[in-house]
C-alpha cells in the first residue's frame, strides 16, 4: 500500500494531536506519560531545544566538534607514533580535546544564549511571552536550561574521545573529573553572565557595544579556564585531598550563588516597573555573601598562604559587589506601587526585620552599607584568626590601620550613595531612569570628588607636589592612602566619619516611616481570581515572595 506525502503528514499530525487510534494501547499509554513529563518541563526549554536542534548553528557546531575530535584523534595518534605505545600520551591528546570542546561550551553556547534572549527582545517575541503565564525567571531559566542541554550534547559527543585519551595513561580520573567539572561550571556561569547582558541594550548602537563586552568576557573566561585546564592536564592536580575538596566546594558555592544573583538581576530587567524587582536580588546577594564568608572561613584550614589570598580576593570581590549593588539600589524608584505595597509584611515585627528587602532607595542604601559592614567585620575576624595560624607570617600592614581605613571607606560610600540618590532624584524629574545609571553616577561622582580638589591643589601649588590638607577631604583616594599609612590628620578622619554617619543614621531614622503600616489589602476580586486560576485555598498566594502570607485578607 503506497502512502502519499500529504497522507503521511496528516497521519503524523493526527498522532501529534492525539487523534490517531492506530497506535497500540500500550504505546498510547507511554505517550500519555511522556506528555505528562513534558508538561512538567519549562516551556521555554522545550521551545529552545526544538529550535536549537533544528538550527544551522547547532548542526554546524556539532559537526565541527565531531570532525575536530575525530581529526585530532587520528592526527594526534599518528603524530605520537610510536611513543604512544610506551609513553603516557593522554595529556597531549586531552589538550586537543579540551580545545575542541571549550570553543562550543565556553564561547558558542553562551553567545547563542545571549543572542537568543536578545533576539526575543529585538523581534518582539519577548512581549508575547510577557503576556503569557511565564514569569521572567522561567524565561531566563529556560534559556539557561537549553544552553546546559546543548553543553551536555557536546560533552557526550566528546566523551568517547576523553575515554580513549584516558586509556593512553598520564592523566588520573580525579584530574579528568575536575577538568570536566571546571568546563561545565565555567560554561554555565559564563552563560548566565552572557544572558544577563542581553536585556541591557535595546538600541542598535548599544547592542553592538554590549556584544563586544560579552565577547570580551567570554574570551577572557575562555582564556582563564583554558590556562587552568591545560596546566591541570600537564601537571596533574597539585592539591591535597582537603585542598581539592575545598576547591570543588568553594567553586560550586561561589559560582552557584553568583549565578543566582545574575539570574535574578536578568529576570528583574524583564519584570515590569509596577512589580517588585528588588527583593529577589537582595535575597540572592545575601546568599552570595554568606557563601563568600563561609569560603573565607573554610580557607583557614588550608594554611596561611592559600587563606590569605582567598580572603583578600573574596573581600575585594564582595566590596566591589556591594558598592555596585548599593549604587543601583540607591537608584531605585522611591515610590511603591500598589502592587508592591500588597506584598509588604503584614505585621510590625515582619516590617521591622524584613524592611531591608522592601524595594526603594532608602532601604537599598541601608541594606548595602549594613551588609558591607557585616562583610568587613566577618573578614576582619577571619583575618584575625589567620594571623594566629602556626605558619602565619608578617603581612606588612597594621590591622588597626586597615580597620580605621575600612571605617573611612564605608563613610565615603555612604556619602557617595546619598549623592547618587540626589542625582537620580533630579534626573527622575524628567526622565525614566534605569538603576544602572546609579552606578555611572557613583563612578563619575567619585572621580570628580577625587580629581577636582587634587587638580585645584596642583594648580595652586604651581604643579608641584604638595602636602595633604583638609581641603583634600573629598579626595577619597588620598585620604584612604593617608589612613593606611597612619598619617591622616585627626580632623579629616572625623569630618568624613561624621558626614558618613549622618548619611547612614539619617537614612536609618527615615526608614521608621517604612516600618509603619502601609500595606494595601489584596482585593477579594483578585484573591478569588488567583484561587480560580491556581486551584489554591483562600489565603495562599503566589504574590508573596517572602512567604509572609500577605494575601490572606481581603476587602
Amino acid at each position, binding site marked *: 500500500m503506497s502512502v502519499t506525502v500529504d497522507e503521511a503528514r496528516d497521519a503524523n499530525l493526527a498522532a501529534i494531536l492525539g487523534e490517531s487510534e492506530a497506535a497500540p494501547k500500550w504505546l498510547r499509554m507511554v505517550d500519555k506519560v511522556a506528555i505528562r513529563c513534558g508538561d512538567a518541563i519549562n516551556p521555554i526549554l522545550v*521551545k529552545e531545544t*526544538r529550535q536549537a536542534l533544528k538550527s544551522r548553528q547547532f548542526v554546524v557546531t556539532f559537526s565541527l566538534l565531531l570532525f575536530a575530535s575525530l581529526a585530532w584523534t587520528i592526527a594526534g595518534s599518528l603524530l605520537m607514533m610510536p611513543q604512544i605505545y610506551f609513553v603516557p600520551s593522554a595529556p597531549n591528546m586531552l589538550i586537543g580535546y579540551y580545545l575542541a570542546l571549550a570553543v562550543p561550551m565556553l564561547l558558542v553556547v553562551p553567545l547563542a544564549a545571549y543572542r537568543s534572549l536578545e533576539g526575543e527582545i529585538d523581534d518582539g517575541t519577548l512581549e508575547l511571552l*510577557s503576556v503569557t503565564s511565564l514569569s521572567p525567571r522561567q524565561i531566563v531559566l529556560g534559556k539557561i536550561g537549553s544552553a546546559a542541554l546543548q553543553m551536555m550534547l557536546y560533552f557526550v559527543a566528546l566523551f568517547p574521545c576523553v575515554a580513549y585519551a584516558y586509556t593512553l595513561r598520564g592523566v588520573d580520573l580525579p584530574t579528568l573529573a575536575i577538568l570536566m567539572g571546571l568546563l561545565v561550571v565555567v560554561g554555565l556561569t559564563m552563560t548566565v553572565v552572557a544572558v544577563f547582558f542581553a536585556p541591557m541594550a535595546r538600541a542598535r548602537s548599544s547592542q553592538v557595544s554590549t556584544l563586544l563586552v560579552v565577547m570580551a568576557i567570554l574570551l577572557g573566561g575562555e582564556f582563564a579556564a583554558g590556562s587552568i585546564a591545560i596546566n591541570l592536564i600537564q601537571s596533574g592536580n597539585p592539591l591535597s585531598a582537603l585542598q581539592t575538596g575545598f576547591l570543588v566546594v568553594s567553586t560550586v558555592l561561589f559560582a552557584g550563588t553568583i549565578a543566582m544573583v545574575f539570574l535574578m538581576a536578568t529576570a528583574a530587567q524583564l519584570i515590569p516597573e509596577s512589580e517588585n524587582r528588588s527583593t529577589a536580588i537582595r535575597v540572592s546577594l545575601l546568599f552570595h555573601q554568606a557563601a563568600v564568608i563561609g569560603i573565607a572561613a573554610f580557607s583557614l584550614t588550608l594554611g596561611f598562604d592559600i587563606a590569605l589570598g582567598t580572603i583578600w580576593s573574596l573581600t575585594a570581590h564582595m566590596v566591589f559587589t556591594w558598592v555596585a549593588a548599593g549604587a543601583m539600589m540607591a537608584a531605585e524608584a522611591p515610590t511603591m506601587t500598589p502592587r508592591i505595597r500588597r506584598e509588604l509584611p503584614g505585621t510590625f515585627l515582619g516590617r521591622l526585620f524584613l524592611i531591608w528587602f522592601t524595594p526603594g532607595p532608602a532601604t537599598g542604601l541601608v541594606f548595602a552599607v549594613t551588609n558591607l559592614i557585616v562583610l568587613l567585620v566577618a573578614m576582619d575576624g577571619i583575618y584575625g584568626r589567620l594571623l594566629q595560624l602556626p605558619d602565619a607570617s608578617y603581612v606588612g600592614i597594621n590591622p588597626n590601620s586597615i580597620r580605621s581605613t575600612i571605617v573611612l571607606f564605608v563613610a565615603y560610600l555612604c556619602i557617595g550613595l546619598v549623592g547618587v540618590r540626589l542625582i537620580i532624584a533630579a534626573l527622575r524629574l524628567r526622565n525614566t531612569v534605569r538603576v544602572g545609571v546609579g552606578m555611572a553616577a557613583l563612578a563619575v561622582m567619585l572621580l570628580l570628588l577625587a580629581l577636582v580638589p587634587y587638580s585645584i591643589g596642583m594648580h595652586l601649588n604651581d604643579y608641584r607636589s604638595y602636602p595633604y590638607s583638609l581641603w583634600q577631604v573629598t579626595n577619597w583616594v588620598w585620604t584612604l592612602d593617608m589612613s593606611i599609612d597612619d598619617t591622616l590628620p585627626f580632623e579629616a578622619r572625623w569630618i568624613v566619619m561624621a558626614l558618613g554617619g549622618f548619611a547612614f543614621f539619617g537614612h536609618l531614622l527615615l526608614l521608621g516611616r517604612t516600618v509603619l503600616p502601609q500595606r494595601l489589602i489584596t482585593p477579594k476580586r*483578585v484573591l478569588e*481570581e488567583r484561587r480560580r486560576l491556581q486551584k489554591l485555598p483562600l489565603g495562599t498566594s503566589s504574590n508573596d515572595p517572602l512567604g509572609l502570607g500577605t494575601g490572606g485578607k481581603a476587602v
Partner: protein
Amino acid sequence: MIAGAKSLATNSMSRLIPGGVHADVAPCIELRRIYRFFGTTKAVQDISFSIPQGSVFGYIGPNGAGKTTSMRILATLDLPSFGEAFIDGLSVINDPELVRHRLGYMPDSYGTYRDVNCWEYLDFYARAYGITGEERLRRLRWVLDFTGTRKIAEKPIRGLSKGMKQRLCLGRALIHDPSVLILDEPAAGLDPRARIELRQMIGELADRGKTIIISSHILTELAEMCDRVGIIEQGRLLATGTVDEIQREQAEHRELVIRLLSDTTEAANRVSQREFVNKVTIEGEILRIEFTGDMRAQADLVTELVLSGCIVAEAIAHSRSLEDVFLQVTEGLVQ
C-alpha cells in the same frame, strides 16, 4: 455602552477602592483617564472609555495617534504615566498576571520564531499559558481548525505567506481561550481574500462572546466589523460610539435627498428660504438639500414640504461612511 471621556472622568475616581481594583465589574474593558508620556511626548492624554462584554470596538486614528500605546497598556505591556485600566474588573497595572489569562494579544508584528513549525509554535504558547495534557491537544486541534492552519501545521513558519502568518498569530492569541482579544492592525498587508477571511473569523469570535478591540487603517472593514468605534488623534480620544452616533454628534452639515412627484422648483424655493439651508440642487425629480443642523432640522424640512402640498415619494438622509466621519473628526495632525 460606551461612555464618553468626560462623563467617565467625573465618576471614575469615586469608585476606586484600596488595592487598585474597582467594585463595578460590568464593562469588560475599561480605561480611566489614561496618560502616557515618553519624555516630553504625550503619547496618550486623558483617554477614558469602556467596552461591554461581547462587543467589537474599532480603534481608529492616524499613525502615531496613540492607538498602539493604549492597546499595549491594556495588554499589560506598558504602564500608563497616570490613570487606570481594567479588564474584567482586574487592574492591568496591579494584577497583570491575572489579566493575562483573560487576554489574547496580537501586535502589529508577527512575533514568530525561526526553526519552528506551525504546530510547535502553537504548542509552545499553549504550554506557556500553562495548558497541559489532553486539554492542550484539544486546544491545538480547535485553533488549527478555526484558523484554517491544519494543512500547514507541519510547515516551518518562515515559509508562510502573510495571510497564513496572520492566521497563525490569531491562533496564538486564541490558544488559551481568552475572553478579551486585542488586535493591533491585524489586516495590515493582507490581500483582499485574506482580509475577508480575517473579518469572518473576527465576526465568529464576536458571536462566541469574545470582547474584541481592534485597530486598523482600513476603515470600511472596521465599519462592517465593529459595534462601536473610537477615534483618536494626537493621543486624545476625539469621539466614541457607533458610526451613526459619532456622525450625529460631530456632523453639523447634513444632506437630505428627497424624491418628489410634484413640482420640484416650487419645493426648492420653499426650503431655500429656511435659514439653516445652505444649498438646494434640483436633479430631475430629486431635490438635494444641504443644511446645517441636527435631526430635528431634518424633520422640519420634510414636514414643511409635506404640509405645503408637495408629494414626497422618498426622503433619504445621506449616510456618511466611517471614512467621512474619520476625516471630519480628525485634523490630520501628528505628534
